[in-house]
């Protein structure tokens, strides 16, 4: 579903991502962990076509994000670390705008909007302007808008930040549901317990370089993910 090969991206003389390679198969939930400034957001943005990179290749379902960006974007959804969405629209107008852009038929969009907004308990607030939403409500709306076109690949940057425990639990269920249908998820997180329980695979990155990746069992063995992460951080300090 997602293939990243030898991805390199520099900002001036600093290499944010250095020769990174990863493969995510259909049905996998892949966690991406690393310290602040390790290159996680840069990688995720490059995968979504938001950031040009210096070298390497990113394929989504066999299509290059650089050569066929629209085809790739049609199949993926991105949730950034900060839900900066259109505060001048109401929740329902924002979701309808996203549906228009993805070309979702009328009946289907109504059903999906109401399904997800009911699940996230946001239905009553859909007529409110987004400017009146709290951080958590904006995050919920960003999640709904990402799920509404049923993406095959979901890219998320710190998706649990700002969510209440119920919404966090619901998001984990929805992530599993998407993967059961053959979709894939690639997300960054600092909550290692969540990554450990939820994910099939994990990649640990430091200063742009991949330290370790593979199935959760391969990476952590008998230890906890937290112990492995801290150990790797010390070894490569």
């Amino acid at each position, binding site marked *: 579903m997602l293939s990243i090969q030898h991805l390199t991206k520099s*900002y001036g003389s600093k290499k944010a991502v250095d020769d990174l390679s990863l493969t995510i198969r259909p049905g996998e939930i892949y966690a991406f962990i690393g310290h602040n400034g390790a290159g996680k957001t840069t990688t995720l*943005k490059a995968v*979504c*076509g*938001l*950031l*040009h990179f210096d070298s390497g290749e990113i394929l989504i379902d066999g299509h290059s994000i650089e050569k066929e960006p*629209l*085809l790739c*974007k*049609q199949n993926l959804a*991105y949730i*950034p670390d*900060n839900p*900066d*969405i*259109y505060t*001048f*629209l*109401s*929740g*329902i*107008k924002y979701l*309808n*705008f*996203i*549906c*228009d*852009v*993805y*070309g979702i*038929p*009328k009946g289907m*969009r*109504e059903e999906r*909007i*109401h399904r997800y907004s009911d699940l996230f308990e946001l*239905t*009553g*607030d*859909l*007529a*409110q302007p987004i400017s*009146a939403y709290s951080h958590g409500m904006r995050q919920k709306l960003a999640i709904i808008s990402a799920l509404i076109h049923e993406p095959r690949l979901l890219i998320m940057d710190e998706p649990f930040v700002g969510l209440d425990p119920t919404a966090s639990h619901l998001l984990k269920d929805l992530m599993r549901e998407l993967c059961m249908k053959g979709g894939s998820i690639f997300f960054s997180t600092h909550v290692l317990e969540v990554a450990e329980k939820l994910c099939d695979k994990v990649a640990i990155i430091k200063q742009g370089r991949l330290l370790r990746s593979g199935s959760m069992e391969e990476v952590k063995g008998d230890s906890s993910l937290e112990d492995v992460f801290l150990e790797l951080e010390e070894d490569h300090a």
Partner: protein
Amino acid sequence: MLKALIRVRFASLFSSMFRTKKTEAGMSTGKKVLFGILWIYVIAVLLFVFGALFFAFVPMLATELNWFFFALAGLLAFFFSFIGSIFVTQSQLFDATDNELLLSMPIPTYYILLSRMLLLLILNYVYEGLIFAPALFVYVLSGYATALGIILLIIAYLVLPLLTLSLSCLCGWLLAVISSRLRHKNIIQVVLMLVFFLGYFYFIQNSSDYLNSLIENGTAIAEAVEKAFPPFYFLGDAVANGNLLSFLWYFLFCLVPIIPVYWLLSRFFIRITTTKKGQKKIAYRRGELRVNSPMKALILRELRFFLSLPMYMMNSLVGVIFCILIPFFLISQQETFLPFLSLIGPSAADAAGILVAVMMIFCASTNIVTAPSISLEGNRLWLLRSLPVPSKKILLAKAALHCLVCIPFLLISTLVGCIALGSSLLSTILAVLFACAMTVLIALLGLIINLHMPKFDWLNETTCVKQSGSVMLTMFGGMGILVVPVLLYVFVLNFLPLIVYAYLCLALCVAGCVFSYFYLTHKGVVLFERLQG
């Protein structure tokens, strides 16, 4: 601590003027020079306009009403500065995004307020300097100047901004309180700005009548000023007659109000800035959702964003306001224009349409909807970029909004103007085509310039709309498009029939549109895809 706060405010001001991208250390020397030239041009025009006004009042310096010359300078400076800073005051003092962050720190509230007020004070000094400098210049040249008068006028300039600051802070507070309690505050803000704007232009249009009646009824008006605006009477009396007691009164009028205003604002600052804006919750009712094509959805998104920012609307649709006023002006001034046009002879009907076309080109050049539209995406740029829509469509949706909000008004005004002046069919068609072509050209140019000069590190949309380089460059570029062909005809190409020359210019304008379209959809798309919001 106060020093640090002031330093941060100045760094923010400097950054808003001279930084264009997050990643750049600063603006290139070429851009700085260009910016400098633009600012010098604007300042020179204002100094010239006010200088001419004061020259008209020089004879007054020889009469008993000599004080009125300085009172007028004070009054003009006060109102010019007040109108210029009132909306900035609201956004800088009460709507600043870093208010909550600073208030959470162990910083006394009065320090935060003081650092913000100092910035506004500097803004007031700039505004008032544009009036006082030509007044002082004219006073010195008039031959009536005294050393004491000059010194008092300079001190008067130094203390007057304090009075303006007091009033604008109070009004900014009132605006913040009112707008936080209103549901349709955008509409109300637009109406308020429109009233200000129309009032201003009504005054400008009738300024010659006012000037005449001022000269004819000088004594009566001077008495009215003396009663209604005592500080300015004291200012005039002090400078003109060297009356130090009057100057002391003026000094106190300027200095005293700032003390209670500062005390009041610092006492209520936290409450004003952190009050949860109480808005009624809008109940959501499930209904049918309207399905749009991606392009229509993008244009609607642009329109909703545009309508959500009154400051953006007012700043970018100045030409639309002008073009609504022009038909009324032409109809009311038919008696002036028709005899003048008939002097031209058989081609008068052609000239009428060309005159309307020139007016409409001017209007179209002052509509700058697209010029800040890329920058205004700010932190939300990721959303547009992540959508499965070609970048070309995103850019064209922005240009389409510009055309949609401008062309209908320009078309109606052009037709009414042409009918009012009895324009020929050929020149009416020319005026209509010119109004449309110029609007399209400015829409495309604004976008192209903004793509080259994006500005994403703004704290407040007002900064982006009012202070960005792309806005200024588009506006002055648009005016250049009007001025250059006119000058070229007057001084070089006047052997050509006017209508032929006008159609040649139209052809060039259309060619400019075609070139800009291709530039935007090729190079512009590349630039857009490399942007980082």
